[in-house]
Protein backbone atom coordinates (compact mmCIF):
# COMPACT_ATOMS: atom_id res chain seq x y z
CA UNK A 1 0.00 0.00 0.00
CA UNK A 2 1.24 3.44 -0.82
CA UNK A 3 1.34 6.03 2.00
CA UNK A 4 -0.71 9.19 1.31
CA UNK A 5 1.10 11.96 -0.50
CA UNK A 6 1.19 14.24 2.54
CA UNK A 7 3.34 11.75 4.49
CA UNK A 8 6.74 13.20 3.50
CA UNK A 9 5.56 16.65 4.60
CA UNK A 10 3.83 15.87 7.88
CA UNK A 11 5.84 12.90 9.13
CA UNK A 12 9.10 14.77 9.93
CA UNK A 13 7.22 17.78 11.30
CA UNK A 14 5.16 15.54 13.59
CA UNK A 15 8.22 13.66 14.80
CA UNK A 16 10.07 16.94 15.34
CA UNK A 17 7.36 18.22 17.67
CA UNK A 18 7.16 14.84 19.39
CA UNK A 19 10.91 14.86 20.03
CA UNK A 20 10.62 18.28 21.61
CA UNK A 21 7.92 17.05 23.98
CA UNK A 22 9.27 13.62 24.91
CA UNK A 23 11.86 12.85 27.63
CA UNK A 24 15.59 13.11 26.96
CA UNK A 25 16.70 9.54 26.41
CA UNK A 26 14.14 8.71 23.70
CA UNK A 27 14.93 11.49 21.30
CA UNK A 28 18.15 10.26 19.70
CA UNK A 29 16.56 6.98 18.67
CA UNK A 30 13.38 8.77 17.65
CA UNK A 31 15.11 11.21 15.33
CA UNK A 32 16.70 8.30 13.47
CA UNK A 33 13.34 6.53 13.33
CA UNK A 34 11.82 9.69 11.84
CA UNK A 35 14.52 10.13 9.20
CA UNK A 36 14.45 6.41 8.35
CA UNK A 37 10.66 6.31 8.02
CA UNK A 38 10.82 9.41 5.85
CA UNK A 39 13.36 7.75 3.56
CA UNK A 40 11.19 4.62 3.31
CA UNK A 41 8.11 6.71 2.48
CA UNK A 42 10.02 8.64 -0.18
CA UNK A 43 11.29 5.44 -1.78
CA UNK A 44 7.71 4.11 -1.93
CA UNK A 45 6.57 7.39 -3.41
CA UNK A 46 9.35 7.35 -5.98
CA UNK A 47 8.49 3.82 -7.11
CA UNK A 48 4.86 4.83 -7.47
CA UNK A 49 5.73 7.95 -9.45
CA UNK A 50 7.87 5.91 -11.84
CA UNK A 51 4.62 4.33 -13.08
CA UNK A 52 2.52 7.51 -13.23
CA UNK A 53 2.50 10.96 -11.53
CA UNK A 54 0.56 11.00 -8.25
CA UNK A 55 -1.71 13.82 -7.08
CA UNK A 56 -3.88 14.41 -4.04
CA UNK A 57 -6.38 17.23 -3.49
CA UNK A 58 -6.50 18.34 0.12
CA UNK A 59 -9.80 18.82 1.96
CA UNK A 60 -11.86 17.50 -0.93
CA UNK A 61 -11.45 20.68 -3.00
CA UNK A 62 -9.94 20.37 -6.44
CA UNK A 63 -7.90 23.04 -8.26
CA UNK A 64 -8.31 25.80 -9.40
CA UNK A 65 -9.68 26.61 -5.92
CA UNK A 66 -8.36 23.81 -3.71
CA UNK A 67 -4.81 22.91 -2.75
CA UNK A 68 -3.25 19.98 -4.52
CA UNK A 69 -0.14 17.93 -3.84
CA UNK A 70 1.44 16.71 -7.03
CA UNK A 71 4.45 14.45 -7.50
CA UNK A 72 6.10 13.80 -10.83
CA UNK A 73 9.57 12.36 -11.42
CA UNK A 74 11.39 15.58 -10.60
CA UNK A 75 9.45 16.20 -7.36
CA UNK A 76 9.87 12.58 -6.25
CA UNK A 77 13.60 12.68 -7.02
CA UNK A 78 14.04 15.85 -5.00
CA UNK A 79 12.11 14.51 -1.97
CA UNK A 80 14.07 11.26 -2.14
CA UNK A 81 17.34 13.19 -2.22
CA UNK A 82 16.18 15.34 0.72
CA UNK A 83 15.22 12.31 2.82
CA UNK A 84 18.49 10.52 2.04
CA UNK A 85 20.73 13.50 2.81
CA UNK A 86 18.95 14.33 6.07
CA UNK A 87 19.44 10.75 7.28
CA UNK A 88 23.14 10.86 6.39
CA UNK A 89 23.51 14.24 8.14
CA UNK A 90 21.89 12.88 11.31
CA UNK A 91 24.41 10.00 11.26
CA UNK A 92 27.17 12.57 10.85
CA UNK A 93 26.02 14.48 13.93
CA UNK A 94 24.96 11.44 15.96
CA UNK A 95 27.41 12.15 18.78
CA UNK A 96 26.80 15.86 19.24
CA UNK A 97 23.89 17.91 17.97
CA UNK A 98 21.38 15.08 17.75
CA UNK A 99 21.27 15.05 21.54
CA UNK A 100 20.00 18.64 21.51
CA UNK A 101 16.22 18.64 21.29
CA UNK A 102 15.93 22.14 19.86
CA UNK A 103 18.24 21.18 17.03
CA UNK A 104 16.40 17.92 16.31
CA UNK A 105 13.06 19.69 16.22
CA UNK A 106 14.19 22.47 13.88
CA UNK A 107 16.15 20.08 11.65
CA UNK A 108 13.27 17.66 11.17
CA UNK A 109 10.77 20.47 10.62
CA UNK A 110 13.06 21.88 7.94
CA UNK A 111 13.08 18.46 6.27
CA UNK A 112 9.27 18.41 6.17
CA UNK A 113 9.08 21.97 4.84
CA UNK A 114 11.59 21.25 2.07
CA UNK A 115 9.65 18.16 0.97
CA UNK A 116 6.48 20.26 1.08
CA UNK A 117 7.90 22.86 -1.28
CA UNK A 118 8.86 20.08 -3.69
CA UNK A 119 5.46 18.40 -3.57
CA UNK A 120 3.01 21.31 -3.47
CA UNK A 121 1.24 22.48 -6.57
CA UNK A 122 -0.35 25.54 -5.02
CA UNK A 123 1.77 28.70 -5.25
CA UNK A 124 0.25 30.32 -2.18
CA UNK A 125 1.03 27.29 0.00
CA UNK A 126 4.53 27.29 -1.46
CA UNK A 127 4.83 30.92 -0.35
CA UNK A 128 3.81 29.97 3.20
CA UNK A 129 6.32 27.13 3.33
CA UNK A 130 9.07 29.36 1.93
CA UNK A 131 8.47 31.93 4.66
CA UNK A 132 8.40 29.34 7.43
CA UNK A 133 11.45 27.50 6.12
CA UNK A 134 13.32 30.82 5.94
CA UNK A 135 12.53 31.35 9.62
CA UNK A 136 13.66 27.84 10.55
CA UNK A 137 16.83 28.09 8.45
CA UNK A 138 17.80 31.41 10.03
CA UNK A 139 17.29 29.94 13.50
CA UNK A 140 19.57 27.04 12.52
CA UNK A 141 22.22 29.42 11.14
CA UNK A 142 22.40 31.24 14.47
CA UNK A 143 22.08 28.04 16.45
CA UNK A 144 25.23 28.63 18.51
CA UNK A 145 24.15 32.23 19.18
CA UNK A 146 27.53 33.76 18.66
CA UNK A 147 27.51 37.38 17.59
CA UNK A 148 28.65 36.83 14.02
CA UNK A 149 26.03 34.27 13.19
CA UNK A 150 23.32 36.47 14.72
CA UNK A 151 24.11 39.20 12.19
CA UNK A 152 24.33 36.70 9.33
CA UNK A 153 21.08 35.04 10.32
CA UNK A 154 19.20 38.33 10.53
CA UNK A 155 20.64 39.49 7.20
CA UNK A 156 19.62 36.22 5.60
CA UNK A 157 16.13 36.33 7.02
CA UNK A 158 15.27 39.95 6.25
CA UNK A 159 16.52 39.84 2.65
CA UNK A 160 14.71 36.56 1.97
CA UNK A 161 11.44 37.76 3.49
CA UNK A 162 11.83 40.96 1.46
CA UNK A 163 11.95 38.90 -1.74
CA UNK A 164 9.14 36.65 -0.54
CA UNK A 165 6.93 39.74 -0.21
CA UNK A 166 7.59 40.45 -3.89
CA UNK A 167 6.47 36.90 -4.51
CA UNK A 168 3.25 37.47 -2.58
CA UNK A 169 2.44 40.66 -4.50
CA UNK A 170 3.05 38.71 -7.70
CA UNK A 171 0.61 36.06 -6.49
CA UNK A 172 -2.03 38.72 -5.78
CA UNK A 173 -1.75 40.03 -9.35
CA UNK A 174 -1.68 36.52 -10.77
CA UNK A 175 -4.84 35.58 -8.89
CA UNK A 176 -6.59 38.66 -10.14
CA UNK A 177 -5.77 37.77 -13.75
CA UNK A 178 -6.22 34.01 -13.72
CA UNK A 179 -8.20 33.13 -10.56
CA UNK A 180 -5.90 30.27 -9.57
CA UNK A 181 -2.65 29.51 -7.78
CA UNK A 182 -2.30 25.99 -9.10
CA UNK A 183 0.79 25.46 -11.24
CA UNK A 184 -0.81 22.58 -13.13
CA UNK A 185 -3.91 24.64 -13.93
CA UNK A 186 -1.74 27.56 -15.03
CA UNK A 187 0.27 25.31 -17.32
CA UNK A 188 -3.00 24.13 -18.84
CA UNK A 189 -4.78 27.46 -19.34
CA UNK A 190 -1.97 29.91 -20.09
CA UNK A 191 -0.99 28.62 -23.55
CA UNK A 192 -4.55 29.48 -24.70
CA UNK A 193 -4.43 33.04 -23.38
CA UNK A 194 -4.37 35.49 -26.28
CA UNK A 195 -2.73 38.36 -24.41
CA UNK A 196 0.12 37.63 -22.01
CA UNK A 197 0.96 41.27 -21.28
CA UNK A 198 -1.06 41.55 -18.02
CA UNK A 199 0.91 38.57 -16.69
CA UNK A 200 4.35 40.13 -17.22
CA UNK A 201 4.32 42.02 -13.93
CA UNK A 202 3.27 39.08 -11.71
CA UNK A 203 5.73 36.85 -13.59
CA UNK A 204 8.59 39.27 -12.94
CA UNK A 205 7.69 39.58 -9.25
CA UNK A 206 7.50 35.80 -8.76
CA UNK A 207 10.71 35.12 -10.69
CA UNK A 208 12.62 37.79 -8.75
CA UNK A 209 11.86 35.90 -5.54
CA UNK A 210 12.77 32.54 -7.11
CA UNK A 211 16.08 33.95 -8.36
CA UNK A 212 16.93 35.41 -4.97
CA UNK A 213 16.28 32.01 -3.39
CA UNK A 214 18.54 30.46 -6.03
CA UNK A 215 21.20 33.20 -5.47
CA UNK A 216 21.50 34.35 -9.07
CA UNK A 217 24.11 36.97 -9.85
CA UNK A 218 23.21 40.32 -8.33
CA UNK A 219 21.10 38.60 -5.68
CA UNK A 220 23.71 36.29 -4.18
CA UNK A 221 25.14 38.50 -1.41
CA UNK A 222 23.23 36.72 1.36
CA UNK A 223 24.49 33.26 0.40
CA UNK A 224 28.15 33.41 1.48
CA UNK A 225 27.07 34.99 4.75
CA UNK A 226 24.41 32.39 5.46
CA UNK A 227 26.27 29.32 4.21
CA UNK A 228 29.74 30.33 5.26
CA UNK A 229 29.07 31.85 8.66
CA UNK A 230 31.86 30.60 10.91
CA UNK A 231 29.92 29.22 13.82
CA UNK A 232 26.98 27.61 12.04
CA UNK A 233 27.07 23.81 12.52
CA UNK A 234 28.55 22.18 9.41
CA UNK A 235 25.44 20.05 8.87
CA UNK A 236 23.41 23.26 8.62
CA UNK A 237 25.81 24.72 6.05
CA UNK A 238 25.59 21.44 4.15
CA UNK A 239 21.78 21.44 4.09
CA UNK A 240 21.58 25.08 3.05
CA UNK A 241 24.14 24.71 0.28
CA UNK A 242 23.27 21.23 -0.86
CA UNK A 243 19.50 21.31 -0.73
CA UNK A 244 17.90 24.52 0.36
CA UNK A 245 19.31 26.66 -2.42
CA UNK A 246 17.90 24.09 -4.89
CA UNK A 247 14.45 25.17 -3.78
CA UNK A 248 14.95 28.38 -5.72
CA UNK A 249 15.98 26.46 -8.83
CA UNK A 250 13.11 24.03 -8.42
CA UNK A 251 10.68 26.93 -8.13
CA UNK A 252 12.27 28.43 -11.22
CA UNK A 253 11.77 25.19 -13.20
CA UNK A 254 8.15 24.94 -12.08
CA UNK A 255 7.33 28.57 -12.87
CA UNK A 256 9.03 28.37 -16.26
CA UNK A 257 6.96 25.32 -17.19
CA UNK A 258 3.75 26.99 -15.97
CA UNK A 259 4.51 30.25 -17.82
CA UNK A 260 5.78 28.56 -20.97
CA UNK A 261 4.23 31.27 -23.10
CA UNK A 262 6.65 33.87 -21.70
CA UNK A 263 10.04 33.25 -23.20
CA UNK A 264 12.89 34.57 -21.05
CA UNK A 265 15.47 31.88 -21.74
CA UNK A 266 18.01 34.31 -23.24
CA UNK A 267 17.80 36.56 -20.18
CA UNK A 268 18.36 33.71 -17.74
CA UNK A 269 21.01 32.09 -19.94
CA UNK A 270 23.11 35.27 -19.73
CA UNK A 271 22.34 35.74 -16.02
CA UNK A 272 23.38 32.14 -15.38
CA UNK A 273 26.66 32.48 -17.27
CA UNK A 274 27.52 35.71 -15.43
CA UNK A 275 26.67 34.05 -12.10
CA UNK A 276 28.83 31.03 -12.87
CA UNK A 277 31.89 33.09 -13.82
CA UNK A 278 31.52 35.66 -11.03
CA UNK A 279 31.00 32.93 -8.43
CA UNK A 280 34.21 31.21 -9.53
CA UNK A 281 36.15 34.51 -9.41
CA UNK A 282 34.93 35.22 -5.87
CA UNK A 283 35.72 31.64 -4.85
CA UNK A 284 39.30 31.95 -6.11
CA UNK A 285 39.79 35.11 -4.05
CA UNK A 286 38.78 33.65 -0.69
CA UNK A 287 41.03 32.00 1.85
CA UNK A 288 38.34 30.91 4.34
CA UNK A 289 37.46 27.32 3.43
CA UNK A 290 33.77 27.69 4.19
CA UNK A 291 33.59 30.87 2.08
CA UNK A 292 35.34 29.17 -0.85
CA UNK A 293 32.72 26.44 -0.75
CA UNK A 294 29.80 28.88 -0.51
CA UNK A 295 30.94 31.02 -3.43
CA UNK A 296 31.36 27.78 -5.26
CA UNK A 297 27.70 27.03 -4.75
CA UNK A 298 26.92 30.35 -6.46
CA UNK A 299 29.06 29.34 -9.42
CA UNK A 300 27.44 25.89 -9.77
CA UNK A 301 23.96 27.42 -9.51
CA UNK A 302 24.93 29.58 -12.47
CA UNK A 303 25.97 26.49 -14.41
CA UNK A 304 22.65 24.78 -13.65
CA UNK A 305 20.79 27.92 -14.75
CA UNK A 306 22.72 27.93 -18.04
CA UNK A 307 21.86 24.27 -18.58
CA UNK A 308 18.15 24.79 -17.92
CA UNK A 309 17.89 27.72 -20.33
CA UNK A 310 19.86 26.40 -23.27
CA UNK A 311 16.71 25.22 -24.98
CA UNK A 312 17.94 21.66 -25.38
CA UNK A 313 16.26 18.79 -23.58
CA UNK A 314 19.50 16.89 -23.02
CA UNK A 315 21.10 19.94 -21.42
CA UNK A 316 18.05 20.45 -19.18
CA UNK A 317 18.28 16.84 -17.99
CA UNK A 318 22.00 17.42 -17.45
CA UNK A 319 21.13 20.48 -15.35
CA UNK A 320 18.68 18.49 -13.24
CA UNK A 321 21.22 15.70 -12.81
CA UNK A 322 23.71 18.36 -11.77
CA UNK A 323 21.27 19.47 -9.05
CA UNK A 324 21.45 15.96 -7.57
CA UNK A 325 25.22 15.72 -8.06
CA UNK A 326 25.86 19.13 -6.57
CA UNK A 327 23.83 18.19 -3.50
CA UNK A 328 26.07 15.14 -3.01
CA UNK A 329 29.50 16.65 -3.49
CA UNK A 330 28.77 19.95 -1.80
CA UNK A 331 27.47 18.09 1.25
CA UNK A 332 30.68 16.03 1.48
CA UNK A 333 32.81 19.15 1.11
CA UNK A 334 30.96 21.10 3.81
CA UNK A 335 30.97 18.12 6.19
CA UNK A 336 34.68 17.52 5.57
CA UNK A 337 35.38 21.22 6.05
CA UNK A 338 33.50 21.05 9.36
CA UNK A 339 35.68 18.16 10.56
CA UNK A 340 38.84 19.97 9.46
CA UNK A 341 37.81 23.19 11.22
CA UNK A 342 37.10 21.29 14.45
CA UNK A 343 40.47 19.51 14.25
CA UNK A 344 42.71 22.42 13.27
CA UNK A 345 40.82 25.22 15.00
CA UNK A 346 41.13 27.55 12.01
CA UNK A 347 39.24 28.26 8.80
CA UNK A 348 42.14 29.84 6.96
CA UNK A 349 43.24 27.37 4.32
CA UNK A 350 46.85 28.59 4.40
CA UNK A 351 47.13 27.46 8.03
CA UNK A 352 45.91 23.96 7.30
CA UNK A 353 48.39 21.33 6.14
CA UNK A 354 48.58 17.59 5.85
CA UNK A 355 44.93 16.62 5.96
CA UNK A 356 45.81 13.41 4.11
CA UNK A 357 48.10 12.23 6.86
CA UNK A 358 45.99 13.41 9.72
CA UNK A 359 42.57 12.10 8.63
CA UNK A 360 43.02 9.94 5.52
CA UNK A 361 39.43 8.72 5.13
CA UNK A 362 37.88 12.19 5.32
CA UNK A 363 40.51 13.45 2.87
CA UNK A 364 39.80 10.63 0.41
CA UNK A 365 36.07 11.33 0.38
CA UNK A 366 36.71 15.06 -0.04
CA UNK A 367 39.01 14.38 -2.98
CA UNK A 368 36.28 12.24 -4.56
CA UNK A 369 33.90 15.18 -4.15
CA UNK A 370 36.42 17.60 -5.67
CA UNK A 371 36.90 15.29 -8.64
CA UNK A 372 33.12 15.19 -8.96
CA UNK A 373 32.61 18.94 -8.82
CA UNK A 374 35.37 19.67 -11.33
CA UNK A 375 33.99 17.08 -13.74
CA UNK A 376 36.87 14.59 -13.72
CA UNK A 377 36.28 11.49 -15.86
CA UNK A 378 34.38 8.63 -14.16
CA UNK A 379 32.94 10.91 -11.46
CA UNK A 380 29.35 12.15 -11.38
CA UNK A 381 30.10 15.75 -12.39
CA UNK A 382 31.54 14.54 -15.68
CA UNK A 383 28.23 12.94 -16.69
CA UNK A 384 26.11 16.01 -15.95
CA UNK A 385 28.64 18.31 -17.59
CA UNK A 386 28.80 15.98 -20.61
CA UNK A 387 25.02 16.20 -20.96
CA UNK A 388 25.07 19.99 -20.56
CA UNK A 389 27.67 20.32 -23.32
CA UNK A 390 25.99 17.73 -25.53
CA UNK A 391 24.06 20.14 -27.75
CA UNK A 392 26.40 23.12 -27.68
CA UNK A 393 27.41 23.81 -31.25
CA UNK A 394 28.55 27.46 -31.35
CA UNK A 395 32.04 28.36 -30.22
CA UNK A 396 30.90 31.12 -27.86
CA UNK A 397 28.78 28.74 -25.79
CA UNK A 398 31.54 26.14 -25.72
CA UNK A 399 34.11 28.72 -24.68
CA UNK A 400 31.85 30.02 -21.88
CA UNK A 401 31.36 26.52 -20.46
CA UNK A 402 35.09 25.86 -20.69
CA UNK A 403 35.80 29.14 -18.87
CA UNK A 404 33.37 28.21 -16.09
CA UNK A 405 35.07 24.85 -15.64
CA UNK A 406 38.57 26.32 -15.62
CA UNK A 407 37.43 28.78 -12.94
CA UNK A 408 36.12 25.89 -10.85
CA UNK A 409 39.38 24.01 -11.34
CA UNK A 410 41.55 26.96 -10.29
CA UNK A 411 39.62 27.46 -7.07
CA UNK A 412 39.81 23.77 -6.22
CA UNK A 413 43.51 23.55 -7.01
CA UNK A 414 43.89 26.31 -4.45
CA UNK A 415 41.55 24.46 -2.08
CA UNK A 416 43.41 21.16 -2.31
CA UNK A 417 46.67 22.75 -1.18
CA UNK A 418 45.65 21.95 2.36
CA UNK A 419 45.61 18.19 1.77
CA UNK A 420 49.37 18.01 1.35
CA UNK A 421 52.14 18.53 3.82
CA UNK A 422 53.64 16.59 6.66
CA UNK A 423 52.22 16.08 10.08
CA UNK A 424 52.79 13.40 12.68
CA UNK A 425 49.51 13.81 14.44
CA UNK A 426 46.63 11.45 13.80
CA UNK A 427 43.17 12.85 14.31
CA UNK A 428 40.47 10.90 16.11
CA UNK A 429 37.27 11.36 14.14
CA UNK A 430 33.93 10.03 15.33
CA UNK A 431 33.02 6.95 13.25
CA UNK A 432 29.63 8.36 12.18
CA UNK A 433 31.34 11.36 10.59
CA UNK A 434 33.79 9.24 8.63
CA UNK A 435 31.04 6.87 7.54
CA UNK A 436 28.79 9.70 6.32
CA UNK A 437 31.61 11.32 4.33
CA UNK A 438 32.76 8.01 2.82
CA UNK A 439 29.23 7.02 1.82
CA UNK A 440 28.59 10.30 0.01
CA UNK A 441 32.08 10.32 -1.50
CA UNK A 442 31.65 6.85 -2.95
CA UNK A 443 28.23 7.87 -4.30
CA UNK A 444 30.02 10.63 -6.23
CA UNK A 445 31.97 7.88 -7.98
CA UNK A 446 29.01 5.50 -8.35
CA UNK A 447 26.78 8.12 -9.95
CA UNK A 448 29.53 8.75 -12.47
CA UNK A 449 30.28 5.13 -13.36
CA UNK A 450 26.59 4.24 -13.60
CA UNK A 451 25.59 7.64 -14.98
CA UNK A 452 23.34 6.51 -17.82
CA UNK A 453 21.17 4.02 -15.85
CA UNK A 454 20.83 6.46 -12.93
CA UNK A 455 19.60 9.24 -15.21
CA UNK A 456 17.16 6.74 -16.71
CA UNK A 457 15.79 5.85 -13.26
CA UNK A 458 15.68 9.39 -11.84
CA UNK A 459 14.36 11.36 -14.79
CA UNK A 460 13.08 8.66 -17.13
CA UNK A 461 15.29 9.95 -19.89
CA UNK A 462 17.40 7.72 -22.11
CA UNK A 463 20.89 8.98 -22.66
CA UNK A 464 23.66 7.41 -24.61
CA UNK A 465 27.17 8.34 -23.70
CA UNK A 466 29.25 8.27 -26.81
CA UNK A 467 32.63 6.78 -25.74
CA UNK A 468 34.63 8.80 -28.26
CA UNK A 469 32.95 12.05 -27.23
CA UNK A 470 33.39 11.19 -23.56
CA UNK A 471 37.07 10.43 -24.12
CA UNK A 472 37.47 13.75 -25.91
CA UNK A 473 35.83 15.52 -22.97
CA UNK A 474 38.22 13.72 -20.63
CA UNK A 475 41.18 14.97 -22.65
CA UNK A 476 39.74 18.49 -22.53
CA UNK A 477 39.42 18.05 -18.75
CA UNK A 478 43.09 17.08 -18.41
CA UNK A 479 44.19 20.00 -20.57
CA UNK A 480 42.06 22.49 -18.65
CA UNK A 481 43.30 21.06 -15.34
CA UNK A 482 46.84 21.67 -16.54
CA UNK A 483 46.13 25.21 -17.64
CA UNK A 484 44.21 25.86 -14.42
CA UNK A 485 47.29 24.84 -12.46
CA UNK A 486 49.41 27.24 -14.51
CA UNK A 487 46.88 30.04 -13.97
CA UNK A 488 46.90 29.35 -10.25
CA UNK A 489 50.69 29.22 -10.08
CA UNK A 490 51.36 32.43 -11.99
CA UNK A 491 48.27 34.61 -11.83
CA UNK A 492 46.52 33.89 -8.55
CA UNK A 493 49.00 33.36 -5.77
CA UNK A 494 49.88 36.50 -3.83
CA UNK A 495 48.37 38.96 -6.27
CA UNK A 496 46.94 42.17 -4.85
CA UNK A 497 43.98 42.03 -7.25
CA UNK A 498 42.54 38.97 -5.51
CA UNK A 499 42.87 40.62 -2.12
CA UNK A 500 40.72 43.46 -3.42
CA UNK A 501 38.12 41.01 -4.76
CA UNK A 502 38.04 39.37 -1.34
CA UNK A 503 37.12 42.68 0.28
CA UNK A 504 34.05 43.15 -1.95
CA UNK A 505 31.05 42.90 0.32
CA UNK A 506 27.51 44.02 -0.34
CA UNK A 507 25.88 45.77 2.60
CA UNK A 508 22.25 45.25 3.40
CA UNK A 509 20.96 48.30 1.53
CA UNK A 510 22.95 47.46 -1.58
CA UNK A 511 21.50 43.95 -1.51
CA UNK A 512 17.96 45.31 -1.19
CA UNK A 513 18.69 47.69 -4.06
CA UNK A 514 19.97 44.83 -6.19
CA UNK A 515 16.67 42.99 -5.69
CA UNK A 516 14.78 46.05 -6.91
CA UNK A 517 17.15 46.50 -9.86
CA UNK A 518 16.89 42.84 -10.85
CA UNK A 519 13.10 43.16 -10.80
CA UNK A 520 13.25 46.37 -12.85
CA UNK A 521 15.59 44.87 -15.46
CA UNK A 522 13.50 41.70 -15.78
CA UNK A 523 10.30 43.74 -16.18
CA UNK A 524 11.98 45.98 -18.73
CA UNK A 525 13.24 42.95 -20.65
CA UNK A 526 9.73 41.46 -20.74
CA UNK A 527 8.04 44.57 -22.01
CA UNK A 528 10.71 45.60 -24.50
CA UNK A 529 11.91 42.29 -25.91
Amino acid sequence: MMPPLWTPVLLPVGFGILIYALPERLKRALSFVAAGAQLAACIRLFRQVCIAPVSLSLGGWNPPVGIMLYADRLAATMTLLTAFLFLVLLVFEADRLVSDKNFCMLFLILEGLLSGIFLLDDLFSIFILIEVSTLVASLLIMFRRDSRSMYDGLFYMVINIFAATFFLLGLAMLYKQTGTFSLQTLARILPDAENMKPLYLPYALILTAACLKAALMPLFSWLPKAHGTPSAPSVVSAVLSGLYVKNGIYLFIRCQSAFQAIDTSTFFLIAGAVTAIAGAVFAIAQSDIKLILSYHTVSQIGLIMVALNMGSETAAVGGMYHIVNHALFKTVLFLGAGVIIDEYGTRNMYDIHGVFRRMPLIAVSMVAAILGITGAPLFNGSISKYLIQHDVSDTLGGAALLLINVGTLVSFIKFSGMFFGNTRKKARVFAGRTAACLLLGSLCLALGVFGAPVVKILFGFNITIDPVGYLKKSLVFLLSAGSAWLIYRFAVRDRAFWKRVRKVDFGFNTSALSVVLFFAVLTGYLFLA
Partner: protein
Amino acid sequence: MNIGEIGAIVIFFLGVYGMVVHRNIMKSILSLSVMDTAVILFFLAGGGSGSTAAPIGTEIAAGAADPIPQALMITAIVIGVAVTAVALTMLIYIHNKYGTSNWEKAGKMRERP
Protein backbone atom coordinates in the same frame (compact mmCIF):
# COMPACT_ATOMS: atom_id res chain seq x y z
CA MET B 1 -7.63 48.71 -11.17
CA ASN B 2 -9.56 50.31 -8.35
CA ILE B 3 -8.38 52.93 -5.89
CA GLY B 4 -7.54 50.31 -3.23
CA GLU B 5 -5.18 48.44 -5.53
CA ILE B 6 -3.40 51.58 -6.71
CA GLY B 7 -3.01 52.69 -3.10
CA ALA B 8 -1.66 49.24 -2.18
CA ILE B 9 1.01 49.40 -4.89
CA VAL B 10 2.06 52.89 -3.77
CA ILE B 11 2.35 51.70 -0.16
CA PHE B 12 4.27 48.59 -1.28
CA PHE B 13 6.90 50.66 -3.05
CA LEU B 14 7.08 53.03 -0.07
CA GLY B 15 8.10 49.96 1.93
CA VAL B 16 10.63 48.99 -0.75
CA TYR B 17 12.03 52.52 -0.60
CA GLY B 18 12.41 52.16 3.16
CA MET B 19 14.31 48.89 2.73
CA VAL B 20 16.74 50.40 0.23
CA VAL B 21 17.36 53.70 1.99
CA HIS B 22 17.36 53.13 5.74
CA ARG B 23 20.41 51.78 7.50
CA ASN B 24 18.59 51.20 10.76
CA ILE B 25 17.65 47.54 11.24
CA MET B 26 14.49 48.53 13.12
CA LYS B 27 13.35 50.59 10.15
CA SER B 28 14.06 47.68 7.79
CA ILE B 29 11.78 45.47 9.86
CA LEU B 30 9.12 48.21 9.87
CA SER B 31 9.42 48.52 6.08
CA LEU B 32 8.87 44.78 5.76
CA SER B 33 5.65 45.11 7.76
CA VAL B 34 4.54 48.01 5.57
CA MET B 35 5.12 45.92 2.42
CA ASP B 36 3.28 43.00 3.93
CA THR B 37 0.29 45.15 4.81
CA ALA B 38 0.26 46.64 1.32
CA VAL B 39 0.03 43.18 -0.23
CA ILE B 40 -2.85 42.29 2.10
CA LEU B 41 -4.65 45.46 1.04
CA PHE B 42 -4.05 44.59 -2.61
CA PHE B 43 -5.53 41.12 -2.18
CA LEU B 44 -8.60 42.37 -0.35
CA ALA B 45 -9.19 45.28 -2.74
CA GLY B 46 -9.12 42.80 -5.62
CA GLY B 47 -11.65 40.55 -3.88
CA GLY B 48 -14.50 43.05 -3.83
CA SER B 49 -15.37 46.70 -3.36
CA GLY B 50 -17.31 48.29 -0.50
CA SER B 51 -20.69 47.61 -2.08
CA THR B 52 -20.35 43.82 -2.54
CA ALA B 53 -21.98 41.52 0.01
CA ALA B 54 -19.85 39.59 2.49
CA PRO B 55 -19.48 35.87 1.68
CA ILE B 56 -20.83 34.64 5.03
CA GLY B 57 -23.43 31.98 5.85
CA THR B 58 -24.95 29.12 3.89
CA GLU B 59 -26.98 31.29 1.52
CA ILE B 60 -24.38 33.34 -0.31
CA ALA B 61 -25.81 36.19 -2.39
CA ALA B 62 -24.94 36.31 -6.06
CA GLY B 63 -22.07 38.72 -6.71
CA ALA B 64 -20.71 38.41 -3.18
CA ALA B 65 -17.04 39.20 -2.57
CA ASP B 66 -14.55 36.45 -3.48
CA PRO B 67 -13.86 34.60 -0.20
CA ILE B 68 -10.51 33.09 -1.22
CA PRO B 69 -8.33 36.22 -0.87
CA GLN B 70 -9.80 36.83 2.57
CA ALA B 71 -9.08 33.28 3.71
CA LEU B 72 -5.53 33.46 2.35
CA MET B 73 -4.81 36.81 3.93
CA ILE B 74 -5.56 35.50 7.42
CA THR B 75 -2.69 33.04 6.86
CA ALA B 76 -0.47 35.81 5.49
CA ILE B 77 -1.16 37.97 8.57
CA VAL B 78 -0.23 35.11 10.91
CA ILE B 79 3.02 34.48 9.04
CA GLY B 80 3.79 38.20 9.03
CA VAL B 81 3.38 38.38 12.81
CA ALA B 82 5.71 35.40 13.29
CA VAL B 83 8.35 36.87 10.99
CA THR B 84 8.24 40.26 12.70
CA ALA B 85 8.48 38.66 16.14
CA VAL B 86 11.52 36.57 15.24
CA ALA B 87 13.22 39.49 13.48
CA LEU B 88 12.69 41.76 16.49
CA THR B 89 14.08 39.10 18.84
CA MET B 90 17.20 38.83 16.70
CA LEU B 91 17.49 42.63 16.66
CA ILE B 92 17.45 42.70 20.47
CA TYR B 93 20.26 40.12 20.50
CA ILE B 94 22.30 42.10 18.00
CA HIS B 95 21.76 45.34 19.87
CA ASN B 96 22.92 43.73 23.10
CA LYS B 97 26.01 42.24 21.42
CA TYR B 98 27.15 45.17 19.27
CA GLY B 99 25.49 48.15 20.95
CA THR B 100 24.16 49.36 17.61
CA SER B 101 21.17 48.73 15.38
CA ASN B 102 22.78 50.04 12.20
CA TRP B 103 23.39 47.52 9.39
CA GLU B 104 26.74 49.07 8.40
CA LYS B 105 28.11 49.38 11.92
CA ALA B 106 26.94 45.91 12.91
CA GLY B 107 28.52 44.55 9.72
CA LYS B 108 31.85 46.16 10.63
CA MET B 109 31.69 44.84 14.20
CA ARG B 110 31.04 41.39 12.76
CA GLU B 111 34.41 41.39 11.00
CA ARG B 112 36.22 41.64 14.33
CA PRO B 113 36.94 38.30 15.94
